[in-house]
């Protein structure tokens, strides 16, 4: 239900007209089980419990072809941008039942050479040796939760929270393309060489981003990922 309409209540008995404009809601609105926060005139941010739920909502909304030019999952949110009718979108989103079950996408296997400069650091943080890091890191099935930082850079969820590692205090000036790295409990692969502060475990030859490919990102949100020691 839409309780926060900013339009003034029409005084009884008066004959007035109101300019019809996109509504801007100045307060968070609870629509069914979906918590939405306004973002200017043409966007809404939906807050959910975790990355899996954000991914499920984004996948559902894309499938349902909701009226939004951009559907951008984040760590615990989904942004709906370039929306012509915010009120209609709110109604449509109210029809979504929160779930963490995203439609299953294919599983991509990434061959990794575990020879990164931070392997020893991560081993110490995890209380194991480099072989133990390889074993644990490659035992997990990850899922690409969302992209950011660079085209095709997917934030891969799946590592347990107690394996989280801090970023470098001072980012490296150049991290090579294909570097497989950790920050917090996220795993990521650098699609192109760039500065970066993630802890590098190793490298892969997989082409993460190819702008002339039909699907330019190898790991769009929702893709399942397994790492295979090379």
């Amino acid at each position, binding site marked *: 239900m839409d309780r926060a309409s*900013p*339009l*003034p209540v*029409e005084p009884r008995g008066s*004959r*007035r*007209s*109101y*300019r019809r*404009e996109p509504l*801007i809601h*100045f307060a968070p609105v609870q629509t069914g089980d979906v918590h939405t*926060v*306004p*973002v*200017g*005139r*043409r*966007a809404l*941010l939906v807050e959910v419990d975790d990355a899996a739920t954000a991914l499920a909502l*984004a996948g559902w909304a894309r499938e349902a072809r909701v009226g939004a*030019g*951009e*559907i*951008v*999952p*984040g*760590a*615990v*949110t*989904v*942004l709906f*941008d*370039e929306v012509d009718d915010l009120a209609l979108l709110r109604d449509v989103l109210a029809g979504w039942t929160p779930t963490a079950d995203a439609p299953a996408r294919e599983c991509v296997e990434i061959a990794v050479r575990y020879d990164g400069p931070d392997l020893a650091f991560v081993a110490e943080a995890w209380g194991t040796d480099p072989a133990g890091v390889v074993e644990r890191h490659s035992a997990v099935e990850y899922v690409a939760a*969302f*992209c*950011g*930082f*660079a*085209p*095709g*850079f997917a*934030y891969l969820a799946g590592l347990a929270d107690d394996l989280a590692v801090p970023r470098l205090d001072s980012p490296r000036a150049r991290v090579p393309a294909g570097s497989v790295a950790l920050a917090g409990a996220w795993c990521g692969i650098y699609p192109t060489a760039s500065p970066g502060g993630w802890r590098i475990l190793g490298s892969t030859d997989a082409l993460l981003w190819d*702008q*002339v490919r039909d699907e*330019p*990102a190898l790991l*769009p*949100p929702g893709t399942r990922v397994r790492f295979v020691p090379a």
Partner: protein
Amino acid sequence: MRTELVVVEAGTLTTVQDRGRRGLAHLGVPRAGALDAPAADLANRLVGNRPGAALLEVTLGGLEVRLGAGRWVSVTGAPCAVHVDGRAVGHDRAEWVPAGATVRLGPPRSGVRSYLAVAGGIDVEPVLGSRATDTLAWVGPPVVESGSTLPVGPAAGAPRPHDTPRPRRHGPLRVSPGPRVDWFGEAALDALCGTTYAVAADSNRIGLRLEGPALPRRRTDELPSEGMVLGAVQVPPTGTPVVFLADHPPTGGYPVVAVVEADDLWQCAQLRPGDPVRFTRVGPPEPPRAARR
């Protein structure tokens, strides 16, 4: 008939732009596109191009090009001296430029970005549905360099020598509250709107960076990465706001205190380092007007 445009002098920063890429933010691709969109649209209309045809965005003038065939050309945006083979011609109008003639844009008298449209449009190969150069992730055609040659498409429409766009609105940037306004102190928007900021020298197509007092934060924990919109007023740990422009990162981890109205973003494209910037809140809905009887 196609022709080409030879870049004699590229100037400080000249890029190919159109209306940008759509629907790819979830893959981490910035939207890009002309920063002063109404000026780019005007330039295309004047020479009879379809809306969204690719043109050149020229930063602080200094561009000189030579056309392979005669074409209608227009220059809009930041007002600057325009010379065709050394003769001064007008701004904001269509000019016929004969084959082999050079067009030169001087430094703008005010503003930052001028737009040069050629009938037929700059016909570089589109990348992911757009010919725009994104300067964050470098998706799209490379930056325009001196000595390079750009293809120009076949001219389609007739020029439209008269075009009277609605006057551009100057003044404070209108904002509505952002999704994380509650991460800041009480009355954060009043603080934002009560401050005169100055444009920082490192402003670019990614963001209009501002100098001024830091906005007090209520929450200092890390914001989980979330989707960002065009015009988002993001506040990094330094406390001074950045207005996200066309090449902004699609997701970000700093809270957004406010969102600038789309109609005011052209001003952000034309503000120079040191220029004062003020914000004002979008008013409540217009007071109801008595219906005409």
